[in-house]
């Protein structure tokens, strides 16, 4: 793991990259990283996340900035701008059931090819997917999902990269931290090694590539 300034870390993300971003309606999203992506004028990004939050909040800022080519999310109902851009053909949106999305990301991070879920069977979600029957019950095969970068919003980080999340800020964060080639973390507090008890670590240090300095 290396520590970098916010600007240095975001500079590593090229236009066109795929990004997994933590957060649920903006809660737990690494807001500083989002702001810097907008400031650096990134373009053609693919975002994989729970939702696109709302205009002015979290991933909503990337939508408004026109930084996204595509969003793979479970919900856009709270961001009218995403819906308008989608309908206007300015942005592609792939809707995935929330439980399926998080399992696909976990599969990508955990070396699994995919998972069988009953969610979506018999609905438009099954279009183009393989159906398998296990013990007489039908399941969809949903395949693993990975990204170039994971942008993780943590509560505590130590200088090795061990992370914890607070309350409902956890959501997608620990899962995306397993499923990207490069993991970039913004933490509310950076603490000395040993401050986080071993049993309380939610993301083990070796998963983290870059920790953004708090200055």
């Amino acid at each position, binding site marked *: 793991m290396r520590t970098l300034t916010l600007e240095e870390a975001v500079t590593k993300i090229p236009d066109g990259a795929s990004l997994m971003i933590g957060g649920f309606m903006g*809660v*737990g999203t690494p807001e500083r990283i989002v702001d810097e992506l907008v400031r650096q004028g990134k373009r053609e990004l693919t975002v994989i996340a729970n939702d696109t939050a709302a205009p002015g909040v979290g991933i909503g800022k990337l939508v408004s900035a026109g930084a996204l080519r595509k969003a793979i999310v*479970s919900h*856009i109902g709270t961001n009218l701008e995403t819906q308008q851009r989608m309908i206007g053909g300015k942005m592609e949106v792939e*809707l995935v*059931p929330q*439980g399926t999305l998080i399992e696909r990301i976990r599969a990508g991070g955990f070396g699994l090819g995919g998972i069988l879920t009953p969610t979506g069977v018999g*609905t438009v979600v099954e279009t183009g997917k393989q159906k398998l029957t296990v013990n007489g019950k039908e399941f969809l095969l949903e395949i693993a999902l990975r990204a170039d970068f994971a942008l993780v919003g943590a509560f505590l980080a130590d200088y090795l990269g061990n992370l914890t999340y607070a309350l*409902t800020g956890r959501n997608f964060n620990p*899962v995306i931290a397993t499923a990207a080639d490069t993991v970039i973390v913004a933490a509310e507090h950076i603490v000395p090694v040993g401050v986080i008890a071993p049993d309380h670590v939610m993301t083990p240090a070796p998963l983290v590539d870059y920790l953004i300095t708090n200055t």
Partner: protein
Amino acid sequence: MDAQTIIARRIALELREGMLVNLGIGIPTLVANHVPEGVRVFFQSENGLMGTGPAPEEGMQHRLLTDAGGRPVTALPGACTFDSAMSFGLIRGGHVDMTVLGALQVDAQGRLANWMIPGKMVPGMGGAMDLVTGARRVVVAMQHTAKGKPKIVTRCTLPLTSVRPVSLVVTEMAVISFADGAATLIETAPDVSVEQVLAATEAELRVPSRVTQMQL
């Protein structure tokens, strides 16, 4: 009593001691205000919280303690938090005893459509498909009609949320059960007749010899 209160109070009567319950956004949220005295239930919020308490007092909000709609909540003693994989493991794995959701349409077999109106409104399914597929009981909270048109229809014209039928539909007019596979009118609201319910419903309803009145 207004329509929303009738619906929320009636659904609250379905709560049992120790249940794990997920409430959707909108009318379902109101159910939490009517938990029967002496019954302790755990409310789960799919963004990663179990043991959700009432809205915090002014000045006591924390931006990392919210419901699935992003609104500040409190956490009761004994609450716990978890990531989204665990949250949906609880949902899909049948650990959530009951989920209460809104609906755009419910068909004669109890199948629900609640996540999009093609060409008009595409909010996305969020967690609804997992909830309807995985929760032990699925209860729909909705107004009986929309702009005068029945929402309980013979066949959903909107995209389905799940092929799994819901257990119960509660409206301001009636309680309809799908427990045995067919839509059955089991209760009417005070001052609402069976005939009025049938007139406001497109799907064919089975009407038992005795239809009771909602006990609110």
